[in-house]
Every structure is written in C-alpha cells, then in structure tokens.
C-alpha cells in the first residue's frame, strides 16, 4: 500500500479550500471598501456570518455525521463563544466612552470610578450597578479570547463526561443536549446571571480601538477572519476524521459496543470529539456575533441548534463539505425568503407570502430530504463522482444504522 500526502488523499478538502479562497477574493473585489462596491456592506456581513455558520456546521458534522451524536446543544457553545467575546467588546467600548465622558470632569477619574461608571452603563438596564464576577476578565482581550475556548470547552467536557459515562445515547442523548441548552438559555435570561438578561450584549459591531475604521472595511476584515477560521477549522476537522482516529469514531457511530470490545475507550473518544467540536463552534460564534452586532439568550433557543442539524442533514452528513454546502445554501435561502425579497407566489385561490410560509416550506422540505435524500446535497456529488459505494443490498446505512442494526433489522 502506498501512501499519498494528506491533501491528495482528501481531494475534497483541496476543492473546498480553493473554493473558499476564490469566494473570499471575489467578495473582496465586489465590496464597497476594497472593490467595485457591487456588494453592499450589509450583504458582506451576511456572507461573513454565513461562513461562521458553515464552520459551526462543520463542527456539527464532526459530532453528528462522524461520531453519531445528534447534539442539539451546539448553539449553546456558539452563543457562549459570542458572549465571551461580546463581554470584551462591550466592556472595552463602554470603557472608552465612559473614559471620554469622565475626561471632561474637573478631576481625573480613579480606576475604581472608571469601573463603576462602566458597570453602571452596562448593567443599568437590568437595574444593577455592580460588575458581576463573571466579568472579571472583561477588560482583557487575550483573557476573553482564552475564555472563548475554555468556557464552552469546559461545559462540553463536563456535560459530555456525565452523559457518556452513564452511557446515555441515541435520542436520549439528543434530548439531554437540548435540555442543557435550554437550561443555559434560561439561566442567561435571568437578570442576575450577569449577562444582562434578555437584553443580551449589544453594540458588538463597534470594535474598540478601531473607531476610525468604517463598517465597510470592518465587514471585509471580518469576512477574511471568518474565511480563515473556516479554512483552518475545515482542515482540522478533515485531519481528525482521516486516518485511524476517523476510522474509530465512525466505528463508534456504527457500532459502539463492538468498538468497546476492540479495547477502545469509547467515552474518551466521544469526549475528545465533542469538546473539540464545542471549541470550533465557539470560535465560529465569537466571529459571528461581532458581525451580527447583538447577542441575547434567544439565540440559544433549542430550535437554533436544530436548524444547525437541518443544514447538515440537507447538505449531507458524514461529509464535511456537505455540512459547508448545507449551511451556506440553506442559511442564504432562509435570509432571502424571510428578508421579504422573495416574490410572492400567486396561486389562483391564495397568495403565498414567503415571509409567512418559508418556515413551513423549510420544515416540509426537511421531512422530504430525510425521507428521500438522506445523503443530502452531498449525495448528488457522490452520484456525479460515481462514488456510490458500497453496495449494501439497497439498504442505506446512515450513522444510526450500523452494521449490527442491519442484522437486527433482518431478525
């Protein structure tokens, strides 16, 4: 057996990276800040956000498509990443504003006065004037960046350890991840949890220290950052799922018990992938929310995580490029239809307003994809690439449908 370099073994990775590069260059060339201006800044932001969602979808595919855990809690990690970076953005910006206004005072402010002023500004809306303990590091960008990884990672680690240790899996585990997200959302909704309750964190699109840079430029910079993050995240994910590690996690997906009898610590593998995916998702969130400008606990609604699953399913799970395609296609379509730009569909007896009916269409198309095209859009590529293998006597073996289950299905 002769071995080829990693990239050549995975030509799809090369194609995706090349596509991403072309996309980034094209958007830059069409942007208002650096190009012809054909793309309005708001559109550049939408595209940048879409890249972040694609990164989150790649992480979801790792967990679901490769490891077989339908995690309905990914958005918890996504939002936590956003909250962690949002803390610094909001604190640093408010600090600048408060410092500027206090500079007019006769007496220069003490650090304590400055901090009190910031706290008052940020938490006045929830009727508090003290800086909560969870904001202890908010003044420092490096520390908050560390927390972007550490907090979701730790949550995933603890939750995963508890759940996997007790061998909860299948739909039970999905429901449990959903419950975790709900618990986190409810906690964040409280005013006294220290994250401004349902107001969330806002004004995140203004980057402290970059006041002079226009949003047009910032949006392109964030698009670049998102593209780099997606590229690196994709490479990391592709590397993880290639080789023996990928082999083992796909084996866990198909038949966990058998892998245990091979001597692999299944829980350890699950924990590594789950935590890694949580961290990747958190990075995606940390890049997404500065582009969105606002984050609040509604972002953690269980439905958001399920959308992520929907994108991956429509794109084609178990294939990283499927996740990217699904996230990009469905989220762009969603914003097109719900943005009111899609023309109404006039039927003889009823006019379909897409703003109202898009969700219905999405829900139903999702059912159709699950029923008729379980491989999603990526299945189309397989078919085009004549890579339809293996023949399984006409029986599809998805992640939930491993070797053992086929036997039992026959029994």
């Amino acid at each position, binding site marked *: 057996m002769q071995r080829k370099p990693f990239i050549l073994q995975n030509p799809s990775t090369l194609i995706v990276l090349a596509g991403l590069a072309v996309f980034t260059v094209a958007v830059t060339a069409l942007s208002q800040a650096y190009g012809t201006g054909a793309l309005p800044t708001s559109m550049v932001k939408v595209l940048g956000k879409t890249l972040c969602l694609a990164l989150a979808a790649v992480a979801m595919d790792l967990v679901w498509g490769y490891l077989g855990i*339908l995690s309905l809690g990914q958005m918890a990690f996504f939002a936590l990443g956003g909250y962690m970076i949002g803390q610094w953005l909001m604190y640093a910006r408010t600090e600048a504003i408060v410092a500027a206004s206090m500079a007019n005072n006769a007496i*220069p402010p003490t650090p304590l006065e400055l901090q009190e002023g910031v706290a008052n500004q940020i938490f006045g809306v929830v009727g508090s004037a003290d800086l909560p303990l969870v904001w202890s590091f908010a003044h420092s960008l490096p520390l908050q960046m560390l927390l972007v990884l550490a907090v979701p990672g730790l949550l995933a680690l603890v939750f995963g350890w*508890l759940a996997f240790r007790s061998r909860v899996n299948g739909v039970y585990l999905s*429901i449990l991840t959903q419950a975790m997200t709900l618990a986190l959302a409810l*906690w964040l909704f409280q005013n006294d949890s220290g994250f401004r309750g349902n107001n969330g964190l806002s004004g995140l699109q203004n980057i402290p220290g970059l006041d002079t840079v226009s949003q047009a430029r910032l949006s392109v910079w964030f698009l670049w950052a998102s593209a780099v993050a997606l590229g690196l995240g994709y490479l990391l994910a592709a590397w993880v799922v290639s080789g023996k590690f990928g082999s083992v996690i796909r084996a866990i997906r198909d038949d966990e018990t058998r892998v245990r009898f091979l001597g692999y610590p299944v829980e350890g593998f699950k924990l590594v992938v789950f935590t890694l995916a949580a961290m990747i998702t958190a990075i995606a969130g940390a890049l997404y929310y500065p582009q969105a400008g606002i984050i609040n606990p509604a972002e953690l609604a269980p439905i958001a995580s399920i959308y992520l699953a929907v994108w991956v399913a429509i794109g084609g799970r178990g294939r990283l490029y499927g996740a990217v395609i699904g996230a990009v296609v469905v989220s762009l379509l969603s914003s097109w239809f719900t943005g009111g730009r899609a023309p109404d569909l006039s039927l003889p007896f009823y006019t379909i307003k897409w703003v109202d009916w898009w969700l219905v269409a*999405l829900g139903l198309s999702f059912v159709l994809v699950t029923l008729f095209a379980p491989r999603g859009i990526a299945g189309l590529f397989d078919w085009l690439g004549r890579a339809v293998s293996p023949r399984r006597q006409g029986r599809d073996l*998805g992640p939930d449908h491993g070797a053992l289950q086929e036997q039992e299905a026959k029994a």
Partner: protein
Amino acid sequence: MTHAARPLIVLLLTVLTLLSALPAAANPALRAVIADNLDQIERPSRTTVGPLIDQIAATGPEGTALLAAWADRSLGLTDDRRLLIVDGDVMTDAATGAPVSGADPDMLRPNSGVRGLIESALVASQISDPDAAMRAQALDSIARAGTADHLKALRNAPPDPDPALQARRDRLQTLLTIQHDPDPASRIAAIQALSGDVGLDFRAALNPLLVTRRIAATDQPGDANIARELTPGGDLLSRDAAYDLLKAQDLAQPRLTPAAQRDSLAAHIADGKVGGVPVATLGDPAARDRAYDALEAAGTVTPAATESEAQAAIDAHRYFEVYAEPDSDVTDAARAAQRNAQLRLSAMKGIDLGLDALSLASIYFLAAIGLAITFGVMRVINMAHGEFIMMGAYTGYVTQTLIADRTLSLIVALPLAFAVTFAAGVVLYRLVIRHLAHRPLETLLATFGVSIALQQIAKNVFGTQARPLTSPAWLEGAITVNDVISISTIRVAIFVLALLFLGLFLFIMKRTRLGLEVRAVTQNPGMAASMGINPDRIAMMTFGLGSGIAGIAGVAIGLFAKVTSELGQDYIVQSFMTVVVGGVGNIWGTLAGAGLIGVLSKVIESFNPSNTLAAQTFMILFIVIFIQFRPRGIIPQRGRAAEA
C-alpha cells in the same frame, strides 16, 4: 377616611335603610338630648363628646341612626337648627323621623377622632342587638379595626345567645386583649391561649408586638426590652449599616465618600492644583487623599471621618435590636407563639405545595403520556408532540367560537380534539414515520421538520396573539381549606382528567385486544407478526392514540394557559424530561417521572418564588445529574431485551 372604615360605613348605611323603613316614630328622649346639645353636635370636641354620644346611643334605634349618619358625614343642620339625616335625595328629620323635603342643610363634618368615638359607641350597642345578623356585622367591623374601646365594649356586653357568634366574639376579645389590654399578665394569657394558631388575624395581632428598631449605644440600655444584640459585620448588620445607624443617632460624623471627596476637591482647584497636588495626578486615590488632607489642614474643607475613624467608631459601640413593646414577658410570649404558629404554618405550606405539585404533575403526566406511549412502543421520539398539544388547544378554541355554551363546548371539544390529533398522528405515521423505521435520530429530525411547519401554519392561521380558551363557570374559583391551603378548581379537574386517562390507558393495555397486540408488538415485533398481528397497523394505532391524548392534554392546558402557536414548545421539553426520568415503556414510569418533576419544580420554586427561570434551570440540571444514577429512568425496562 381610612380604608378600614369604609366597610363600616357601608354597614351603617344598611342599618340606616333598615331603620328608615320603620314607621316614623317620635323619640322624645332623643329630641331632648338634641335640643340640649345642638351646639356640641355642630362643633364636637374629641375630649368632651364622649358622654354626649353615650347619651344619644342610649335613646334607642333613632339615636343609633343619628350616630351612624353623623359618623358618615351625612348629618346636616338646617338654618332653622333642625338635624336632618341625608341619604342621597331623601332627607329625614333626625329627631322625629319625619321625611323632610326642600331643605338645604349644612353638612356636619366631625373630625376622625370624633368619628372613631362614634363608631365605637355604635359597635358597642350593636353587639347586644337582638338581630343576630347585626351582631355578626358588628363583630366583622371590630375584627377589621378593633380598638381598646371595642375591647371594653366586648367585655361589658351580655353573652351572645348564638354559640358560634359567642365563639367568634371570644376569639376577637382574646385578640383585642393581646393588642390593647393594659395588663401584661392578661395579654400573656391571651397570647398563650391562641399559641400555635395559624389564623391570619392572630399573626397580624402578634406582629405589632414584635416590631423592633435598631439602636447603637456605648453600653447596654438598662430600661429597653432588648430583642438581641447585633455584631457589626455579621449577617444581620453590615459594617456600613452599623455606621449609618451611628450617623442617624448623631454618634458619628458622615463618612467621606469618594464622590464627596471628588466634589470638594473639584471645588478647590487653583492653578491646576488642589492642595498643592497637580490635578492631572488625581486619578490616583492616594493622591486624592493627600490633596484632601492638605485642604483639611488649611481649613478649607470640613473634616470628615476617615476610613479608620469610621471603623473605630463602629467598634466603639454596641448595637441592639429593641422591641417597641416595653414588657419583655409579653414579647417572649409573643415570640414563642409566633414560632409555634410558623412551625404549623410551614407544615400547612408544605401541604399546599404538595397540592400544587400534584396538579403540575398531572399536567406533565397528561402532556407526556402520549409521548411515552409512542416512545415505548416504537422507540420513536415525536418532536411534533408539542404541536399536537397546540392543535388540541386550538381545536378547543375553535369549538368555543362555534358553541357559545362553555360547558357544552368543552364537552364537544374534548373528543373533537382527540379526533383531530388522532387523525394528524395517523397521517404523520403513514407519511413519515413508517418510512423511517429503525432510524430513530432521523425520525426525530423529520418530526422536528413537521413541528416547525405546524407551528408556522398555526401562526399564519390564528395569528401571533394569544387566543383565550375560557373554562365554564363551574370550573372557575378555588377550593379553599384555610388561609394557607387552597387549590383552583381547574387544577383539580385536570388531576381528575389525568387519573381518568391513567385508568383508561391501563384498561386499554390490560383488558382489550388492542392492548394485547400492542404489548406483543413491543416485546417482539417479529413474533407478533408471525402470530397474525399487523405490527404496522398496531404502530399506527398507538401513534394515533398517543397523539390523540396529546390533543386532549392541549384542551386541558389551554384552559389555564394562553393558547398560542408556541404553546406546545413550552411543554415539550418537560414532557421529554418526564419520559426520560420515568423510564420508557411503562405507564407507571411516566407517572413517577411526572410526579418527581412536578414535586421538584415546586420545591425548587418555593425556595425562590420570584425566580421561576432559576427554578427551571436547576430542574434541568437535576435531571442531567439524575440520569447519571438512573440512566434508564425510575422504572427501567428490565431483562435481557433492555441490554441490547
């Protein structure tokens, strides 16, 4: 006019109307009293009016009527010095009882002190009224706002012939003794007589005795009734609060707050310097202190307590909580009685909490039972289950718009909701779930797609605002046991409904052919099929059954919650939790799960009633932990089949 006095006046007006129905009869005694004291009636003085009131009261019903009108400010004096009782448009002469017309009296406005005296006198005379209803009303008004005068009146009144009224009067007398008796011994006896009682009136009577205030002193005050000594910096008294206390008693100077310091510094800037310290460096607290010290030394600012002085002052004093009531024996007895009452109160609150939990558990049970059936039989999680609940609720709403009679519409809505959601469940099964057999996660996602679509359709059809689903009158109100324990009728009805469904479910599973076949398919579908059972049909029927029950749960939930397109979402996670915690495939498991979650939710909520969000957070955390110890739920499926 105080709030408490208003009902009294309503009562007096009633008395008035009763009296005006009597034939007008002259009352010479009254007329004489009026004639002698007209000036004092016109301008009464609180200190001297007492005997006059007693005199008027003694003249009989007409006198009482006059007093009532007087206290109610509906007594008028005409130019020719006649007293008229004015009731709306009707005027009667107070002395003769004769109707008067065309007069324009000046209304008398006695002050509140006088009115209080009049009312006491009235009540005293009513306690001994021959009419039992009148006596009961008198007791009511004393209970609302009793005074020392009332106590005296109660003690002097002849025994009440009605034992129930006498018992009420005794209790009232005891309560008034606690509040108003000058003799400590009889107050203590009264407190001890009622010790352990949980009535609101008793607790209200105790509270004023136990009111405390905080004082700071250099030494223990000898004469005060001290509740306890407080340590500054402890849980009950922070050091800042202690200092505030000192300031309030002028035992210490105001402390120099950073803001005050900053302001006085800003007021003394000269040549870019304050007290010789450059302004630019004043961002440093130490520099500010230096500058302030310099100003203080120069005498330009008033000295203020520095931090160390403040701390020394705090430590130099002792802090006490002192009862307003001077007699320590009384406060001791009151405290003991209060502790006793609180003990019994918490026991009763526990019972009330249990009732609440029971009703919550029945809601969860109703919401989860359909889910448990489908999950138990087919290993399929139906994410659209919440939307079936919503469909049931909307069915109830639509039925109500068509049938005006609430009871009838409810009776129609229940089976109709079952039919609608049963049909929806069967359709969902035929079109989607059947094709996803043995792919549980994909079923979960596909049914989620259905859930999104159904929710949005409901939004498009019914709009986003909440639709009311009104319960019939006989379901409104509450069953009240005492001041603490009460439960709303609708929740009792839901509890009964849940019991009904438990019974129905057990009947179907254990006694019918369908139940037998369902159990067979659950245990071994292959074997069941070879016995001539069509597993597909059974699965469809169970799915329909589960969905139908969701519809009925929807009607029940709609009766006390707002019907919106998101109604199902609010219950779906709790339903899942119920199934997961209870264990699948067993109705008793679902029951146990619902019970556990209901009780826990309420218990957690009772710790911090204002924060239901936190309660839900802790609930979910508890469930995650619970799964650690019982991964298969409270009542797990057993045997080798469960191991696979």
